[in-house]
């Protein structure tokens, strides 16, 4: 069953430095990995590909000793190994840089690079030697950072590079880079790639995970594709066209996504009427330059732009999640003050944050409690929603949004990402908002739920709701939006009024002026 037509397996030039055979890992209720094989050769950059939930991070964590494997065998340098923890994996020559910067912000840059293997003299840490060694590593990487400065003072991108410096400093045999580029700008990515190439040429095996296809094609020699915890295949990058890669990753034809494309005349916003939302010159120092934005009833307005372009920051201002320090907002033509989420909710605005776990879910509460939370908060604690009304609402939305399991008493933490997202959506829909702001509603959920959510948004707009849709995936934004607002460097740079704009159009808008590459999701 697992045999999927694969490209001709490349003949290994050398014995693999890492070989994983038949790896299975199971969590309560989830088979994260099932019999996956993986090989990493010395002197190659190997991309690990797959959609969210494919098992990439589980495989990496098995390799780095964070998870113990339930079945299968890991060989490093030819010999079988069992890792008792991250330290054991590191001792075997495997160095890892995770997506979130896993360093200690309260320590110095030098310490973060060398902690655990500090140069010592007579048993005590030689901080002078440590700084010198750190400076040497940083210089080798072309980074000009004071090793004695506190890590937390530096921007995230620099912290990320310091994390890589830490990995480089050990001269590891295997370097694992899990989404290292997500917070880097074009120059920094180029810098990173330069470093990766020189390491590769020196014989290091590099395992690279990124969802930027562009980058994967630029840097990797071979790739392994996973889907739903199973191996799809192992390929030479040069021999695998993008379309084939994408279909290997998502496992169905792209056409399926077309079902959610709105027919061109569906959303028919009447521009002459008073807009549901009119924001003028709304801004916040250091996060958004003054922006004007109008959203009409029955209209989906997409916000496109790179990470850090101000798309998330802007919608947070509209909802009062962060306080705007300039600009005015009118809802249905009436000026409103929005200084906190409560005022926004009272004005009929709803907002689903991009950070579902941190800013959406109340993990230890049931689906029912999560679903009615916003409505209950608006009513105040003295006026509980009557039991019967509550049950009706919950039952209605569980059915309408196809939330599974259809059990209102299930703890939301036990639901899949897609179903959690649906509960959050339902939480807002019960408040009957005029304007629904969705920030990355489809991130990290499976493709089926994604299609369901896109379809729902379309229906809501058809029913007269105004929607602001933010997503890193241009394709998705373009499909669903009546109008696309393009942001760059915290400013609104364009508004594409009519449908029919292509990904290429928007990309060129974003790219104009900025230094090319590093585009998100250029899968087109």
């Amino acid at each position, binding site marked *: 069953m697992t045999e999927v037509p694969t490209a001709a397996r490349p003949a290994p030039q050398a014995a693999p430095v890492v070989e994983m055979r038949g790896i299975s*890992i199971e969590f309560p209720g989830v088979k994260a990995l099932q019999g996956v094989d993986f090989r990493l050769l010395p002197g190659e950059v190997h991309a690990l590909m797959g959609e969210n939930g494919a098992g990439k991070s589980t495989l990496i964590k098995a390799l780095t000793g964070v998870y113990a494997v339930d079945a299968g065998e890991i060989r490093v340098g030819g010999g079988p190994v069992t890792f008792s923890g991250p330290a054991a994996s590191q001792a075997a020559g495997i160095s890892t840089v995770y997506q979130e910067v896993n360093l200690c912000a309260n320590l110095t840059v030098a310490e973060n690079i060398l902690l655990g293997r500090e140069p010592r003299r007579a048993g005590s840490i030689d901080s002078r030697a440590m700084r010198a060694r750190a400076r040497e590593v940083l210089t080798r990487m072309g980074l000009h950072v004071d090793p004695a400065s506190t890590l937390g003072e530096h921007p995230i991108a620099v912290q990320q590079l310091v994390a890589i410096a830490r990995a480089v400093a050990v001269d590891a045999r295997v370097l694992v880079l899990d989404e290292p580029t997500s917070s880097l700008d074009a120059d920094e990515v180029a810098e990173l790639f330069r470093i990766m190439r020189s390491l590769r040429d020196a014989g290091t095996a590099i395992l690279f995970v990124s969802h930027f296809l562009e980058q994967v094609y630029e840097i990797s020699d071979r790739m392994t594709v996973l889907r739903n915890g199973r191996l799809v295949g192992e390929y030479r990058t040069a021999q695998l066209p993008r379309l084939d890669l994408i279909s290997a990753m998502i496992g169905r034809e792209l056409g399926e996504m077309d079902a959610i494309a709105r027919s061109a005349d569906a959303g028919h916003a009447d521009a002459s009427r008073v807009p549901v939302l009119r924001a003028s010159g709304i801004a916040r120092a250091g996060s958004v330059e003054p922006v004007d934005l109008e959203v009409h009833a029955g209209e989906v307005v997409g916000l496109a732009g790179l990470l850090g372009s101000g798309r998330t920051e802007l919608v947070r201002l509209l*909802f009062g999640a962060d306080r705007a320090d300039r600009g005015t907002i009118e809802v249905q033509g009436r000026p409103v003050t929005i200084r906190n989420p409560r005022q926004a909710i009272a004005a009929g605005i709803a907002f689903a944050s991009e950070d579902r776990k*941190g800013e959406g879910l*109340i993990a230890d509460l049931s689906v029912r409690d999560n679903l009615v939370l916003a409505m209950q908060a608006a009513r105040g*604690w003295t006026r509980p929603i009557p039991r019967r009304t509550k049950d009706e609402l919950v039952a209605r939305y569980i059915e309408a949004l196809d939330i599974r399991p259809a059990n209102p008493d299930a703890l939301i933490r036990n639901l899949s990402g897609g179903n959690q997202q649906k509960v959050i959506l339902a939480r807002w829909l019960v408040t009957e908002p005029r304007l629904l702001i969705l920030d990355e509603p489809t991130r990290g959920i499976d493709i089926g739920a994604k299609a369901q959510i896109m379809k729902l948004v379309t229906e809501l707009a058809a029913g007269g709701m105004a929607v602001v849709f933010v997503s890193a995936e241009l394709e998705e934004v373009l499909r669903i939006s009546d109008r696309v607002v393009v942001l760059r460097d915290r400013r609104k740079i364009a508004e594409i009024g009519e449908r029919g704009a292509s990904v290429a159009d928007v990309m060129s808008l974003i790219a104009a002026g900025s230094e090319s590459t590093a585009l998100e999701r250029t899968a087109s």
Partner: protein
Amino acid sequence: MSTATPLARLRTSGLLWPLVALAALLAVNVAARPSFVSVTVRDGHLYGSLVDILRNGAPTLLVALGMTLVIATRGIDLSVGAIAAIAGAVACTYIGASGDAGAAVVGMLLALLLCAVLGVWNGFLVSVLGIQPIIATLVLMTAGRGLAMLVTDGQIITVNNEAYSQVGAGFLVLPVSILISLGVFAALAVLTRRTALGLLVESVGINPEASRLAGVRSRTIVWTVYVFAALCACVAGLMITSNVNSTNANSVGLWIELDAILAVVIGGTSLAGGRFSLAGTLVGALVIQTLTTTVYNVGIPPQTIQVFKAAVVIAVCLMQAPKFRALLVRRRTPAAPAAATPAPATSEAGPR
């Protein structure tokens, strides 16, 4: 097996182990002195060891109820003991030598008012300034007893007021103090479970930021629970001083915050905040008081109370710790095929 369902429900509610501990303690008492369970009626008042447990446990229970809500919002209030001392100091100083019932009422109202202000202060530090609760309330814990001494001028103040004595020593079939505590318990149970207060407190405790974005008035809720905790501590302070008709700012409510926290933890409410159980707190407070009574009853030297307290705390906490339970489960089923479980194994230990 019709018994399986209630037992299962008891297990998932987290009340099982506290109840087992309570039952065990009671059993030890009965074994040592069978008359332990007997309750006699005199002058329409109930007397007996069980009634004593209720009466002596009343202040701790009251403070623990306030503490439960504070802990549910991810907080902790170390200042309740000091607040109880201040309440006793203010009431007794005001009442002084007066035997007038009016003076008692005014004195108690004054204490309540002042304690509400102290609660507002704690709540302000935590919810507005965003200071860690443990340290924010440490301020008042340290300074509070000094303030109480300031009020009483360092003296032990005795009062002789019939009306005031009722609060701590009065009887209305059962001791008035336990009626007050149980009344607060019932009112709180209704308030949190029949209105949406419980839901909102839990949601703030589990995820403050998500709650804020859902429009919950997190700040107001957090602020309110500290005021409530201070008021509970106030009444507890009045009970303690009224019971002995005097106040000593040095000793009133000393370490009651620790007993209260213990009661909450034994009752199954996690110190990490979130889901709380008022019934658990009730049982927890009873466990602690019964423990003390048991030591006296069984004839163990009273100095050992602390040792037993430590043992109970550790036992209950271990039984509630997912990692410890996982260890037990693994021991019981050595045939488990997986030699090593994946890291996030905690979820299999079952909901609280």
